[in-house]
């Protein structure tokens, strides 16, 4: 033991410390590299990420009602709005909104009767109920968020409007979500 101390004393003290720090750092690095795969495996698996898109026939929705479809494990609302509801959504001033967004930005041009939104409340993810609440859009039963006929948050704890998913019109009566 004492021999070793004498030998160690030969070198430059800074250089001697450095080699220990480097060895320690390498050990930490090796540990982190071992832990990373264990953490990373919890990310969405390849089959889950494969963004499945679904086609939907809009003729299934009658005026003034909505159809709920399941996409990526979440509900999607397809709502056929009445003229009155569209007018109400369009005439709401942006200043009255918590998350300002014009109705025109939430529907596809020329198809403003169809509103397509992800049916998860932006508060904590419950499914809002159709046609209820103070603004005639949706009402979330869990914590009382009110959405208007454009799916925009008007009252309650939710911070954002209902999310409009990526979708496109395949024809006048058919959309592809995703």
């Amino acid at each position, binding site marked *: 033991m004492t021999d070793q101390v004498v030998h160690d004393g030969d070198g430059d003290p800074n250089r001697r410390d450095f080699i220990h720090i480097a060895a320690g750092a390498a050990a930490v690095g090796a540990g982190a590299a071992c832990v990373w795969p264990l953490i990373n495996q919890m990310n*969405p698996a390849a089959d889950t990420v494969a963004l499945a898109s679904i086609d939907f026939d809009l003729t299934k929705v009658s005026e003034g009602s909505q159809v709920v479809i399941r996409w990526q494990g*979440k*509900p999607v609302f397809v709502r056929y709005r009445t003229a009155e509801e569209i007018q109400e959504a369009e005439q709401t001033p942006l200043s009255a909104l918590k998350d300002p967004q014009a109705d025109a930005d939430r529907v596809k041009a020329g198809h403003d009767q169809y509103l397509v939104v992800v049916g998860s409340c932006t508060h904590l993810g419950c*499914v809002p109920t159709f046609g209820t609440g103070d603004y005639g859009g949706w009402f979330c*039963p869990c914590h*009382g968020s009110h959405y208007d006929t454009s799916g925009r948050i008007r009252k309650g704890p939710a911070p954002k409007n209902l999310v409009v998913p990526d979708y496109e019109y395949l024809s006048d009566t058919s959309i592809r979500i995703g």
Partner: protein
Amino acid sequence: MSDHESTYVPKTGIEKWLDERLPIIRFGADYMALPTPRNLNYWWTFGAILTLCLVVQIATGIVLAMHYTPNTELAFDSVERIMRDVPGGWLIRYVHANGASMFFIAVYIHMFRGLYYGSYKQPREMIWILGCVIFFLLIATAFLGYVLPWGQMSYWGAEVITNLIGAIPVIGEPILIWLRGGPAIDNATLNRFFSLHYLLPFAIAGVVFLHLWALHQVGQSNPVGILMPKDSRSKDYLPFHPYFTVKDGFAIILFLMLFAVFVFYNPNALGHADNYIEANPLQTPAHIVPEWYMLPFYAILRAIPDKFGGVVAMFAAIGVLFILPWLDTSRVRSMRYRPTMKKLFVIFVVVCLGLGWCGAQLPDANVIPGIGGGFTLFDGDINTYLWLTRVLTAYYFLFFLVLMPWVGLKETPLAVPASISEPVLTGETEQKG
């Protein structure tokens, strides 16, 4: 206390041989001979009751896992199959489900006891903090376990609670996806929740070991709250066995009777009917509530109008417990000798129960029915659970952050006896705790 001398004497040759190599019998014998304050009352029996709860949950959980299937298609049916077809399966499942509630009843009483008698104060800070860690792990384990039957409340509870993490700015969303293993709660989520639900109880057992280690290092607190004499032969002490084993044992039997009434006569009283409906990702139940033991924290979450603020408040409600030893400025441990603090403590207990009650109500509902549309303050009618919850939440934090430090400095405590045998001998004793 760790400094008490070992009284174990190996009797046979085999014991002597073993004692020199692995002094495990000595460890057990010393544990049983631990000098214990003689005046511990029945509120102190909940430690033993909690140990029993952990053992019961682990034992029943391991056998339930032999029959349960963690797959979204099969989970609900596999739980019901346990109830119908597995021999005695209904008993094991009802014991496990109600055992969670019993665990929380005991843990809340244990915590209130620690709070009342100042068991968190110097030199027992580590015992208290480890206890807070156990409590946090217990909540996590209970939440994960509640998801497994894959009923409507399981699913929507998981949805709402994981979404809390999504409220964290910037990193919330990636963490949420990572935690769920996909964009929504699904099979990947159920699988990992099952794995973690199986793991965490063993982590709890590990922290319980540390909790007891710290306890044996500094010795038990006591209702009078004074420091115990150094000399372990003092008449203030009694050996743990047989005095406290029999006392704990008696309390455990009473507790088991309560447990049995729930398991055998009201097995679903503490659960929610909606959890017997299989999970449906497209429909949220009309009124979702967490299990009763989470209700106070759920109420605090809803009291704050901002999403992230609510999450912060909810975690702060648990987090504040961790720093409690440094918030209390009083030199006196037991609230028995702190008349002002005792009153505030009773109010605190009522506030916690009140928060639990509010957590089960619709926030917009009127507290006093019939008087609607009265006085509106900021964003809601004052006669609603929303405002009642806010008032109670305010007291919850006020109690820890303001009253604890302030009253400790201002109050004049009553005279504290010099030793626990003093009140014992003068007959000024409590009636059986």
